[in-house]
Each structure stands twice: as structure tokens, then as C-alpha cells.
């Protein structure tokens, strides 16, 4: 069983395989075999190596925890920070309508 987790860093190898944190070992293996068929080493060695590395890490729980606890294995923090994204906030309809009208009206005046 793959340890369930709420952290993105653990999901990275799974993301390479196109799976999520709830995937079982059987699903991981099946997906890996499917991807290897799709990207055989002789045709796309780089992609195969990426898939292979992701599979080895995803199928081994201790490797996934090592990725979380050892900064040397996790590597640079920048890619993680670069994924930062603020979800858009719900804006009040009334304020939007008022602002939209004002902007169009001022655009018309300006033109």
C-alpha cells in the first residue's frame, strides 16, 4: 500500500507516471508497464529513464519518505516554490458590475 499523504513533494514521482497519491502498488506497476510500452528505451531513452526513476521512487515507500526528509535527495527548493499559485478569490457581483460600468463609461469618455 502506498502511504497516503497530503504533500505535493511525495506526489511528484506519481505525477510523472500520471497517477495520484491514492494509487496502489498494483496500479503503479500497471501504469509503469503501460508507459514503458509507450516509451521504450530504444526509442526514447530520456523519457524511459524519467519513467523508470519515477517508478522506482513511487513504488518504494522509504524512497518517497527519503525524498521528503533529505534535502539532498529532494534537490533544489526553487521548482517547488515555482509551483506557487494563488487561487482566484470570488469577487462580489455588485462591486464587479459597478466597476465594469465605470470602466466602460470612462473608456467611452476617453475615446
Amino acid at each position, binding site marked *: *500500500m502506498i*502511504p497516503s499523504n*497530503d*504533500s*505535493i*513533494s511525495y506526489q511528484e514521482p506519481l505525477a510523472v507516471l500520471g497517477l495520484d497519491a491514492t494509487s496502489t502498488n498494483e496500479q503503479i506497476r500497471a501504469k509503469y508497464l503501460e508507459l514503458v510500452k509507450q516509451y521504450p528505451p530504444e526509442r526514447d531513452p530520456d523519457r524511459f529513464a524519467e519513467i523508470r526513476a519515477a517508478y522506482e521512487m513511487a513504488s*518504494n*515507500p*522509504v*524512497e*518517497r*519518505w*527519503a525524498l*521528503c*526528509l*533529505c*534535502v*539532498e*535527495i*529532494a534537490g533544489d*527548493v*526553487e521548482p*517547488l*516554490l*515555482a*509551483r*506557487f*499559485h*494563488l*487561487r*482566484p*478569490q*470570488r*469577487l*462580489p*457581483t*455588485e*462591486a*464587479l*458590475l*459597478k*466597476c*465594469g*460600468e*465605470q*470602466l*466602460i*463609461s*470612462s*473608456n*467611452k469618455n476617453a475615446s
Partner: protein
Amino acid sequence: MATRTRNKSRRAGYTTTGQVRPFDVRQHLSRQLHAPAVNSLVQLLQQQSADSHDHGLIEEVLASCASALGKLKFKPQDPQAFLASVHLAAGCVPPDSPLAASVQQTVARIESYVSTDPVATDDPLFNSLVDGCIRSPEFSDRLPEEIADEAATVRDALRLIEAGADDAAAKAVAGIGFRSPLAPWRMLIRGMVAYYGGTIDQAIEAWQRLPADRVPRGIAQAILATQNRRLGDDPIPDKRRLGSLVDHKQPNEREIVDKLSNSFNNDELDSVAEQLSSMSQWKSVDQNWLSAVRDRLYAELLICADVPLVRRVCRMMKPPRWDLKCDLPVAIAKMLSIKDPVHGDVSSDIDKYLATLEKNTELSDVERRAIRGAVLLRLAMLLRQPLELLYGKQGITPEATVELDRVGKSFGHRLVVTIRECVSLWPNWDRPMGLLASGLDFAYFTTEIVIDIHEQRLAARGDEIKVLKPAADFFYFAKRYDRAKQLSEKLLAIAPRDEAVRSLAWAVDLQQMREALIGGNVELAQQIIERMALLKPAKLHSGILLLLQALPLIASDKSQEAQQRVQAAIDCGLSPLAALMLMEIYIAKAKLPAKIKKIFADQRKLRMKSPSISDVMTTIELCSQAALDVNNDYPGRVGHLKDLITCSKRVLTSANRNNWTIELANILGEFVVRASDGTLRRRYLQLLRRHYDWHIVILVSAIEQGPYAARELYRVVHAESNDPYGLPTSLKALAASMFEETQSLGMFGYDDDDEFDDEDDDGFGWYEEDPTPGPKMEELDPEHLEILTLTMPADIMALFLTDPKQVEKKIRELMPPHVANIVIKALHQKSEGVDHDSIK
């Protein structure tokens, strides 16, 4: 009472006498109170005589009303009364007034706006009315019924989106046709669904098609402005135009990331914790991302030696579910800063955490075991670092040497014990073994534990090459030749053509052949040599076998025949100098009679007087490894090393620069790097600095520069694997460890932000004969320049002499205090004994 009445009148905009002033009319206008403005205008006009009417004011009030009506900003409650007042006011402008025409036109516009007749679709007012009735449904009575219904649908859809029911909103507007005047609203809503769903680019794509004169486009502009983004070429609306939406403006994502990144990179972990803590209050932050960064912060704490800082950060951050009290970072910080890893307190703190982990019911069995393994790996990585720093360091005093050795052993012991537990927990996990694989001094380990680790792995996975090969290597280096032999045979059975496997088997056989000779079993030695003929690595000269065959002959007192074998080896192309030195080494290691060795030594010394480049280079290639191997000493090793250095100097002095091929220069470069001889290094750089395999030249010069060589070493270490000027494989590890050393020493370390470009090659110009310093030299202060000119060995000493405080600080950061104290004490003692003038 009078006061109250006066105040009431003022609030109503009138004087105490009930008279209306022009000021009052304008005040109504400024407050967008159009109907009261018209009423007060009429009152004012009635108060005044016809010749004192202000026509300009009449025109201003009526124009303002027309504009507000046109923009649907107001709708008179009693249209008839309002129109009557308008006509009354307009009637006060005589036909001969210059403003009369303009006033009449304005009145006509007001009449059309106030009218209750349906507006035609081609009327310029139509679209404004459609857009306006979304916000103010009271205007929809002049629109056709189906349009009014669609407007109501749009209004509902907007409310649904605000409530988060995006799908319902999209479904609600699906019925609005593309030709409907409300089609832009449908497009706006579809874009909003995409926008709140996180696909902003898709939203922008939809919104870009919105007509420029319709309110939906203004709304789209306003939404994007909260994200500091623009719609197509439209300018980002000014903050003042956003009204109350300013409160919803998103912080700049780039700034947030940069701030966090700086805090991480500068090890300001408390600042990271503070930022994460405030971000956790934001609804718009992805909680998964936040959790991942929090995990990363925790991982950073696990390499931090500052106990107060760790405690501070732990108080600020939400603890992870596998360490609910943040015990582990504090325990590790103590280990790194206070005591050595086998000290009771530190061990018990870490063990206490591991015991708590076992009781953590929030984790599954697999998770607990996996976390334990990962924590042990973390610990092992930390334990390995001091060993790397200690490697090759010797104290000045015997006491310091003993203490360094004791500390090294205590770290080494805990390391191997930790790795053993990792292997027991996860026999299929190879990563911990990587920590034992290379670059560490076996003197720091208890060999028995490492043997135990290998045996455990062999028991679990004894048929895998990646388990067998490291085990066989270890047994060979630990001089357990019998076990190494068993494993190498197993390896040969699995991978008979693998060159690394064959080389190992050859080396094990060579050792066993020597042992047979030492034990007087000449027959066995001969049998082993016959088998070795089948294992000979492809790159090894065939003459070597002939030399080995000479050894049993020497042991059998057949020195004449032995000489013939040596001659045969030379005849088949083996360099005479190399053949003779190899024979000396073989004889010494097999403990054969010294008098025979002397015969070969005498012959070799004759040949050394005027050696050829290729002769010397072959000898270096075949013999330098044995001559440099302090751990496998043999009688005459030091003399051999000296002779190799002498020969190398001779060929560097006498040979023409053009005779040096890349391969020859590389062979010598490798020896120069390892031999630690200043004169040899300088002669090499003097003759071969233009040698176009720059990397090896850089490596040799890096030894001269010591810690200042970080930039050059970075380039060498990170060269592409297919770089034609790349280092020989054998030197890559050495270059990497030299680069790591420059990094650990801190000063002038390579900074990732300061990427090199091709122009940086110019910095290499200071190796040229031109004494003018290059750019690299100019960036150092005079003291550093002076150190660079000294022929000091490449160690921490040069840096310490330059800036003792900085070095001391760095050492204290990197090493546990007791280790740091010893190293610093040794440096002080050494620096006191340094005669600076003599160095110059």
C-alpha cells in the same frame, strides 16, 4: 429649537430663510441627486426675476441629468413630474440665448430616456439599457420581454458564480443565443467559470472577444486587474477605478516566491516559518503546496545545527504528522552542535523520537517503517559529512591526531550501525549503501559491521550484481580475499564478459597468487597465473602476464629464465622502464628475494637517465597507483614514487612541447594531481598550460590555488559527459571532492546566481606568461593575491592565514564544536610555525 431648525435647513441644502441658492443646486448635482437638483433649480428660477436667470446653470443641470439618464444611473420615480420640471427650467432660456439650441437638444434626449416606450434594438441606448438592467432590473421595462428574461438569467448566474456554483451558472446561461444582445454576458460568465477553475488563460481567451463598448469587457478587465493582469492590449485599470475590488487584489505571486526563495537560500528558516504561518491564513493559497513547503522547511531543519533557531521555527510551524512535537530536528541540531553522535544524551534524544514514531497511531505500519528508514538515512548522511571533512586531515600534535581519529571513529561507528539498520529494515533499498560506497576512509569503520551489512544484503539479494559487486569490492579492500574470491566467481558466472567483474577477479587472483608465493606454494601460484590468462582485462598489456609468469620462476631460483620472461615482455612491446619497475613491485609484494629485485632496480636506474616520454608515461600508467598507495605499502614504494616524479620532471624539461599528445598529457596530469609535488606541478603548468585539454590543466592549477579554485573546478566537475576536453573518469571523483572542499571552506565559493558564460574563459588568461593579472586576480584583495602566489599545499591553511576569523566561523558552522576546536587548534599551531618570508 432655533438651532435645530437651522441645522435641519442646512442639511436640506437651503438657507434659514427657505431661499435656494445656486450653490445648493450644484451641491445636489455633485451628489448625483439629479431629481432634487432639477427641483431646486426650478425653485431657484422661480425666486429670481427672468433677467437674472443663470442660463449656464440651467444647461449644466439638464446636461448632467441627460448624461445620468443615458448611463442608467438614475430613473425618476415620477417621470411626468420630472419632465414637467425639466420643461419649466428649459423654458427659462429664451430662444435668442446662445444656449437655447443646446438646451433644447438636451431636453429632447431627456424625453427619450424618460419615455416608457420600448427601445428599438438599433437605438444607441439599447445596449446600455441591456447592460444597465443587469445591475438595475428596474430599467428592463423598456426592453422586450425575452431580453428582460435573459437579463434576469444573467443576473442569477452571476450570483451563482459568486456563491461558487460555477457549473450551475454555466448551465443557466447556456440558453442565451449567440445573436442575443446578452451574448457578451454569456461569454463573460463562461470565462468566469474558467477563471475560478484556475485556467486563467482560457478565461482571457474568451474575454478577449468581448466588445470594447460593453460592460462585460469592463468586468473582465476588473477581474484580471485583481491578478495584476491585463486583457489583451487593454491597460490594467488604475487602483482608484477598481473601487471596493481593491480589497480583493491578489498579492504579487512573484514577490512572494522571491521572498520565500531568498529566505530559504539564506537559511533564514524562522523567516520562512513566519511567511508560511501568515500564508496559511490566506484562503487563496493551495493547501497542498503549503504543506509541501512546510515539509521542505522541516527537512531543512534536519540539517540545522542551531538549536535555538530550530526550537523557534518549531514553535511557529505546524508540526508534521510523523513528528507531532518536532522532536527530531531538535535532537539532530543537538547532535550537530553539542556533542558527538555516540554521546548518551544525543543518542537517547534521537532514539526517543524513533520510539515515539513507533507509537504514532496516525501512521500505518508501512509508513512507520519507511519513515524510520528515511530518518536513519538522514542521520547517516549527516554522519558521513564530518568523515569527509576529516578525511586526509591530520593534527599537528600527536594528541590532535589521536582526537581526530577518535572523533572520526565515533562518527564512522554510528554511521555503519545506522546503515546496518536501514539495510535490515529495507533489504531492497540501495541508497544507504551509497554512503559507504566511496570516498571514505575504512579506518573509521569497524570492518565487522560493514561485513555484516554486506552479508545481510547478500543473504537477501545474493544474485544481484549491484549487491554482489560492492560486497566483493569491499571484501577485497578489507583484505578478506577468500570471501572476495567466492563473490568474484559468482559474479563471473553471472556476467562473464563484464569488464569491471573481470578486473576484480584478476585483482583477487593476483592477490591470491602473491599469497601462494609468500606461503611457498609455487605450484598454486602457477595455476592461478594460468587462470589469470583467461581473465586478463582487455586494456592490460599482454606483457604483464609474462612478467607474472616470471615470479614463480624467481621463487624456484630460476632467475635466468625469469629474466628471459621479462625480456620477452619488453620484446612484445611493454615499456622497459615499466616492466622493470613492475617486476620490482611484484617481487616486493610477493616477498621474493631482495637481491633479484635489486638486479631489476639497477637495470631500471640505468634506463632512467634519459627516458623517452612514452616510456615514462607507460611506467606512470602501470606503476603510479602502487607507488601512491600508502595503505598497501611495500619495501621501496617511496623510492619508486620519487623516481617517477624525477623521471616526469626530466621529460617535462627535456621533451619538446609538440611531442605531447593529449593522451600523454592526461596521463601525466593525473599523476601530477595525485603526487603532491609543487615543482612537478609548476613544470607541468609551465610546459603544458596551452595543452588543449583544459580540464586537466585546470585541475592541476586548482591544487595550486586551493580554495580559490571553486569557479574553475565547477566548470570541470559540471562539464558535459561528451565534452571532448572532459576529465579522465579516474579524476572526476577527485575533482568533485576538491570542488566540495572549496565549497565547504566557503570563501569564493561558486554561487549559482553567478552563472558563467563563455566570456568567463577570459578569466583563465592569468595562466599565460603575461604577468598582468586577469579579471579573476583583480577581484581578490592584495592579501589573497599574495596567498595565491605562495606555493602552499592546497588545504585550508592558505585560507586560514588570510582570514582566520572567517575560516574559524565557517569551521564552527560546519563541524560539531569539539571537532571544530581540534581543527582550529591545529590550524593555530601550524600558522604559528609558518615562516611567511621563507614561503615567499
